[in-house]
């Protein structure tokens, strides 16, 4: 580095014209004059994403008026909703269409910012700011930088590979003869976040399996009636070749059709990404025998007559146990950050899962799911271990059949019920299925 203050050349002709050092008064005057030019103009359309904590991100943006007007014109609407879309790109080179999942938050303003609560730590995200078109698709105005939220718990990876920091390049050593967990390896760690890579994350969030209302198509009329509410958007993987992402649930689809499409997409995702245990959904009415083969349809295709509602047991098999892939269970503090992705089964679960799905009668007992919790990976001796139990209680129509994780739940004569479930670590999907006494479609 040069030192211009000590360099004779530093005293150039500009300095020679000066007479003496500036006084305090002159310094103050110049400082105030320069300060008065604040703030500088915000130029250019940009979206920036920042990590706040394992479960929180912050986005700020600036949209040029011309860019906004062009996007509005292209949207086909007078006042399209502005959305902040968070893509889960953990372990991926994001190409605009290959995210594990995404969720939307409705935002406002050409200059703005938003805190986004995230359901899962140890993930990588890229955000996009855009407008929702009349057909439900998403017109991107700006894409953010990539962020990686840290894992908020201990790593599941344990080995004693060592480095000689004074003699780098020497052979890899081990601190002790302790053997690494054979189920875990560095290849399964995400370099950005330090978390276990979720190699088979289903493209849907917990809400998708439990709340069909959450997947209702965007209802323009309803939005106009409730302009303050940020509508929940389905979290689905867009078509790989789509430059603009059509929402999977078109406005004229019924909730039932949406759910059928959704489960179809789950099936495709699971089947497409080995080595996760592929479980072919047996779409049947609860009381009907399963068909021989699952329907093969593409996303967005209407359900066929052969398709049936999934049984509770099938639901269970599509609910990944999060014991090791999601080190912490953190519910979002704000409604804006809903529909986070559900994690994939971890290696321990894969190892213990049957190669073929059990039939409905062979559904794993509740205790089996509980035993797949992260406590398996915990240290044998701990100073403090905290277990959490969820108490679910409520009422159904008297006489209805209620199942939880595939297990029947006893209803009291008045329809009330009570279930307690120890919670594993990580995000959890709790499929609760109620079948009304008449043969009407069940509500999940």
């Amino acid at each position, binding site marked *: 580095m040069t030192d211009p203050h000590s360099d004779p050349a530093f005293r150039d002709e500009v300095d020679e014209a000066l007479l003496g050092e500036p006084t305090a008064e002159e310094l*103050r005057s110049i400082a105030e004059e320069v*300060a008065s030019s604040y703030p500088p103009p915000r130029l250019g359309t940009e979206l920036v994403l920042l*990590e*706040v*904590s394992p479960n929180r991100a912050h986005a700020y943006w600036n949209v040029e008026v011309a860019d906004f007007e062009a996007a509005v014109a292209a949207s086909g609407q007078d006042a399209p909703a502005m959305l902040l879309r968070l893509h889960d790109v953990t372990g991926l080179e994001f190409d605009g269409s290959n995210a594990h999942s995404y969720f939307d938050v409705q935002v406002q303003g050409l200059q703005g910012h938003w805190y986004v609560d995230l359901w899962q730590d140890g993930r990588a995200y890229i955000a996009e700011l855009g407008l929702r078109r009349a057909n439900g698709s998403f017109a991107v105005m700006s894409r953010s930088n990539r962020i*990686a939220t840290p894992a908020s718990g201990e790593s599941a990876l*344990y080995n004693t590979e060592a480095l000689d920091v004074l003699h780098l390049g020497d052979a890899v050593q081990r601190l002790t003869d302790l053997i690494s967990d054979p189920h875990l390896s560095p290849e399964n760690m995400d370099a950005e976040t330090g978390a276990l890579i979720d190699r088979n994350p289903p493209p849907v969030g917990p809400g998708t399996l439990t709340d069909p209302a959450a997947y209702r198509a965007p209802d323009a009329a309803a939005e106009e009636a409730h302009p303050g509410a940020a509508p929940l958007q389905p979290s689905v993987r867009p078509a790989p070749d789509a430059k603009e992402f059509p929402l999977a649930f078109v406005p004229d689809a019924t909730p039932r059709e949406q759910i059928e499409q959704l489960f179809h997409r789950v099936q495709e995702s699971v089947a497409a990404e080995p080595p996760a245990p592929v479980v072919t959904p047996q779409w049947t009415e609860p009381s009907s025998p399963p068909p021989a083969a699952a329907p093969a349809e593409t996303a967005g295709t209407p359900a066929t007559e052969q398709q049936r509602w999934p049984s509770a047991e099938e639901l269970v098999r599509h609910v990944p146990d999060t014991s090791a892939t999601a080190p912490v269970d953190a519910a979002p503090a704000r409604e804006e950050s809903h529909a986070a992705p559900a994690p994939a089964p971890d290696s321990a679960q894969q190892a213990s899962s049957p190669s073929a799905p059990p039939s409905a009668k062979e559904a794993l007992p509740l205790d089996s799911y509980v035993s797949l919790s992260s406590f398996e990976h915990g240290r044998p001796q701990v100073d403090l271990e905290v277990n959490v139990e969820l108490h679910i209680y409520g009422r159904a129509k008297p006489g209805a059949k209620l199942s939880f994780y595939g297990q029947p739940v006893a209803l009291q004569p008045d329809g009330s019920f009570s279930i307690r479930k120890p919670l594993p670590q990580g995000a959890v999907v709790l499929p609760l299925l109620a079948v009304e006494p008449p043969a009407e479609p069940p509500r999940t």
Partner: protein
Amino acid sequence: MSRGYLSLVLHGHLPYVRHPEHEEFLEERWLFEAITECYVPLIKVCDGLLADGIPFRFALSLSPTLCAMLQDDLLQRRYIRHLERLIELAHKEVARTAADAKLNRLAKFYRDWFIETARIYDARYGRDLVKAFRRFQEAGVVELFTTCATHGYLPLLKTHPRAVEVQIKLGAESYRRSFGRDARGIWVPECAFYPCLETLLADSGFSYFFVDAHGVQNATVRPHYGLFAPIACANGVAAFGRDPESSRQVWSSHGGYPGDWDYRDFYRDLGYDADLDYIAPYILDRKIRIQTGIKYHRITGGDATKELYDPDIARHKVAQHADHFLNSRRQQIAAQAPHMDRPPLVVSPYDAELFGHWWFEGPQFIDSLIRKAAVEQGELELITPGDYLVRHHVLQKSTPSASSWGWQGYNDCWLSGVNEWIYPELHRAATRVSELATAFQSEPAGSLRERLLNQAARSLLLAQSSDWPFIMKCGTAVEYANRRVRDQIARVHFLCDAAVKNDIEPRKLMALEHLDKLFPFLDFRLYADPARVSSPASDSAP
């Protein structure tokens, strides 16, 4: 070999606060108070230990902004003026309290202390405390290391990688110029680490850094030794984890040593107690009451009336707390040693300004701790991180998780509703400087444009200090922090506009150079992207 190690790590840092545009400036007292209460007492402790032949080792980071201020002519003169006023007030206090033996003893205590401070600062070290610390490093008792240029909060600057890189590179260069050697370690500001940062640290030659406990506990590979040994990132840079137990004993406002009732009360100050007419010459603008540094009361506790401070009782309590601290470390080590193939290490990092400023007896505590540790060699040895890595250089390979030592353990403190507004400004300013640096990287040395861009880079660095968002969050001097960020950002853009035009009123440039007068060796080309070949200097550049 010792049974275990204790690494005392002090982080000395203050933001760059220097206002030549005002004859007197309240926030410059941050430095003056730290010199009187922290740095000179620490120097006095080291001198005393050296004189007594006590073997000791601890690590001390001195931030580039702190070094720049400690070596700044203007601030040195102003500190002398500050100290002279304090001595004058202390003399008055000795006279005023003559009828009260207990109070008079305390007044004399302050008078003698300030005079001794002046002797050490002016006569012994020629007003250059950096020289004093350099002496201790050369004597082999202190391992000095550095931090980033202006203590930028790196995780929130990394959207512009060059901004992070310059913070680190300049920290290394500043240390080299202050201490004549390369720093082995770096204090990552606020212990705010994120994976991949270790690459930039290695590029600047650093061998180790520190993270908070959960940074190691949640590392990519579960730490085999927990916090009792550092881990090594894949590139060989070591990460030392902060021991939470020893941190709590010193930091905690509830149950920590500094809250003991016999210690001096921080808030009760003569500046608030004395009659206004009497204290007017020693407060702000003769009318705004501020802390003078003369505090006659002890914490006392509860809602009881504050009792007078007794230095002898406090000194006795210091010895008890040093014993307790060492016993606690011994117990930690004894519990871990049987399970380890190397002596357990307890890493205890603190802000240096805690010792003396917030905890008045802190320097005495360090002195007592070191003297007590010295007599039990073999049981517990004081060690620096650099020493440790020489003795134990085979480390478990694991990269810390993103973390900080702030509230909630991540970025929450530096990015919240009260300070989020600064980041769009910081990012855009960094982009602007970087674009111009790339465009004008071939600018001849000594040119006007070079001066303009160098000064723009200084303003950018000063805006990036983690202290500003921290102060905004704490709510202590919010308006000053807000003003600093706004002013520095305005200066960046003003200078960049001038650089594009290659024109400025000469006195304005000179004034801005006087206002932000640090890093004289800074070369704006650090921000340039060398991969992008610059076009010939053009007045129509970005």
